[in-house]
């Protein structure tokens, strides 16, 4: 299946878009989506922590690495934030 991932901050400015798509097996885990981002979007790498420590939000909550992504979930890559 395809998963659309929202991107922000330096990742988004660098890629000049606010979302990217990755091709993954059906019902992928968060960890699998992070690995696919690394493999399929090398231009994002500068903004990506190693897949094991990367963070996705699924439906606006931080998700554990083993959480499964379901079709229709809103998936967002939460790179290094910088509020304040």
């Amino acid at each position, binding site marked *: 299946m395809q998963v659309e991932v929202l991107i922000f*901050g330096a990742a988004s*400015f660098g890629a000049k878009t606010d979302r990217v798509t990755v091709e993954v097996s059906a019902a992928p885990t968060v960890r699998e989506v992070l690995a696919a981002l690394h493999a399929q979007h090398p231009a994002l790498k500068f903004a990506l922590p190693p897949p094991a420590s990367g963070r996705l*939000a699924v439906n*606006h909550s931080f998700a554990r690495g083993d959480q499964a992504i379901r079709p229709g979930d809103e998936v*967002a890559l*939460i790179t290094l*934030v*910088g*509020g*304040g």
Partner: protein
Amino acid sequence: MVLALIIDGPLTPEFEARALLAHADQWRLLAHDGTIGATLRFEGVVRRAERDPEAADVERDLLALDYQTYDPMAQRGLEALAASVAERHGLRSIVALHSRGRVGVGEVSFVLEVAAPHRVETLAAVADFIDRLKQDVPIWKRAVWAG
């Protein structure tokens, strides 16, 4: 009282007064109940000189910062953080305001005001809140360079 808001543009005293108006009675009651021994208010201000990560981290002049928020996760994250910090440090009150969008040099992008029985709680709470804000709340900033 726990209040967390994301507001478009710079935080001005006038804007803040308006944003807090709905809570003024609650705040007045609290201020006079005699349990508060210390208040601490932090303001984050946009500085002119910032390091440019795309130019060998040399300092360059800014016009402004553009704050990008992932809504509604940022708003909910700010609220959850405020509630968590209030509980952890025994605060009587916490107000956190953060800008979304463009904030010019010298303008305020972040306000945190806490009240507690003693000063140590307020100092610990402000340090703790800002550390965790910079880790967990999905807000990004982008430099708008001068020239």
